């Protein structure tokens, strides 16, 4: 239903990527990516392992330096618009044995708006507690983060991004290793964000749930294969182009 509410022509462009090329070594892992993401969509980035999905997000966010290309957020360079953007990294990217609590990690989401030196106070703590509540992790607020399950750690990361109160959310595999109930809880939060007019970009692996969860999709495999509304472009043709001829077998597994 809400797919119809966002006609492409009417919406503003939230994220615009121009001619982005990224290489770690010699061979580029992303080639000449052009991408326009309209405001207010819930978009999946799909592609096989090693397609460059994480790399794309990291280069958009300035974590990696591309060889060429530019990124703009609402028509301004990304550097000026950082405060509008929140990031949920892949869970495995940090050391979960770090001596800190769940609440503390979520509070880190407020550091950006605090800026240098200033410490978080009551207001920030309240925001963090609310975010924990939203992801259903309030009872675990005092836990050392290594004593959380994988799905719980994932929800902590989500809460940390929610605290940033951004307009655009980039999430790298937020459903990795979570159970069916948590997956639904998370997707409901994402849909709520969309309802509030936010743009949510999610790296997603489960092709079967794409039509159900998302209204926008980008196919990626080193190059951009296609991008657009799920109902128009989520088809065999694009799946085959992205995953190769055998994608049907992998779906059936």
């Amino acid at each position: 239903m809400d797919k119809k509410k966002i006609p492409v022509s009417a919406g503003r462009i939230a994220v615009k990527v121009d001619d982005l090329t990224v290489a770690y070594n010699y061979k580029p892992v992303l080639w000449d990516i052009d991408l326009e993401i309209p405001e207010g969509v819930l978009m999946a980035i799909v592609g096989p392992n090693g397609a460059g999905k994480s790399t794309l997000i990291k280069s958009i966010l300035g974590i990696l330096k591309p060889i060429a290309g530019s990124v703009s957020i609402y028509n301004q360079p990304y550097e000026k618009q950082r405060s509008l953007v929140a990031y949920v990294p892949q869970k495995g990217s940090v050391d979960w044995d770090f001596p800190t609590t769940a609440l503390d990690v979520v509070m880190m989401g407020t550091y950006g708006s605090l800026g240098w030196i200033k410490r978080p106070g009551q207001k920030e703590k309240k925001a963090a507690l609310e975010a924990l509540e939203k992801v259903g992790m309030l009872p675990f607020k005092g836990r050392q983060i290594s004593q959380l399950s994988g799905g719980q750690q994932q929800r902590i990361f989500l809460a940390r991004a929610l605290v940033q109160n951004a307009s655009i959310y980039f999430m790298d595999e937020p459903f990795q290793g979570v159970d069916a109930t948590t997956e639904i809880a998370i997707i409901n939060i994402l849909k709520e964000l969309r309802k509030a007019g936010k743009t949510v970009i999610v790296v997603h692996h489960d092709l079967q749930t794409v039509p159900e969860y998302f209204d926008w999709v980008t196919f990626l495999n080193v190059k951009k294969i296609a991008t657009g509304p799920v109902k128009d472009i989520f088809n065999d043709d694009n799946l085959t182009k992205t995953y190769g001829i055998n994608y049907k077998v992998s779906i059936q597994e």
Partner: protein
Amino acid sequence: MDVTEYIKLVFTDYTLRTITLGTAILGAVCGMLGSFAVLRKQSLLGDAISHAALPGITIAFLITGAKDSNILLLGALLSGLVGTFWIRGIISKTHLKSDTALGLILSLFFGFGMLLLTFIQKQPNANQAGLDKYLFGQAATLVESDVWLMAIVTSICLFVLLLFWKEFKILLFDADYTKTLGFNTKFIDILITTFIVLAIVLGLQTVGVVLMSAMLLAPAAAARQWTNRLGTMVIIAALFGAFSGVFGTAISASQNNLSTGPVIVIVAGFFVLISFIFSPSRGLLFKQIRFIKNRRDLQLHKTLSFMYHIAETHEDITHPHTIKILNNFQGYTKGTLQKLADKHYVTLSDGNWSLTEEGFKTASNLYNQQNDNNE
């Protein structure tokens, strides 16, 4: 020499007081900064930096011909920094792994430093004697001005640490994320690394190039065992470091001429050992005790839940049942039954048992994870 006498001596004897104070401050600052090195998984970095400082010392001596420790340490600081930034450069510009880069710089600089040191020792210059104290350290050569230098650097370090606490913490935990929040991660990173280099250079005279990294790592590794908060960890590490300095000095002073640096390191190592065994949450001992206790509790709980399922079938949950029906049940022994009675989960009366309200409630919540979440 007994303890009170020694303590009196620490306050009256100039040399002993200087050394004790110096090693305590050194231990504290190393513990503080070592926490960061340990949490960043850069344990080898300290080793590489301290070894990289050696050529700086020798070159400073060759240029000035003087043995003023401040000038030599300035040389050490410079070559330590050069080594550190080469390591960073190698890691970011080539495909070498960080341990390879660290090992490479460590041996290259140390080799070069040793080369210069032997070259200097072959010279007729009488001044050169004692330059090799920087290899293993010689706390006895500390003078009051050295201690002042340590105190000043430590205070600056503490000030910066408190000022940028939030930034340090988030960078240590998640560097990529920190970048997306708009913080200049390079600046924070360089700040931390520079202070680690400073602490190492400060310790060279006392502990020496070879053992310096242990000073940095041991107190921090020990402290990690006792807490799950970064702030507490840094404080405990500083305390462990300071105590290592004080005890190490005391042991070496009372055992006539035991070299101070190695003794301090051994004391720090002792803290590590104690911590790994006796820490309540992560230590080996309590882990084992908890394991045994859990296994015992499990038997108790199994019996309780077995009773619960029997009692459930009755309208009155406290209805008495004969003990005999428990006999076939695996977890049941006379001991477990008695323990359940002691906990007021059941009441016993001539051959019969009956569940209490409390026991019923406990049993029904037994597998409910949410229960113990609010610790």
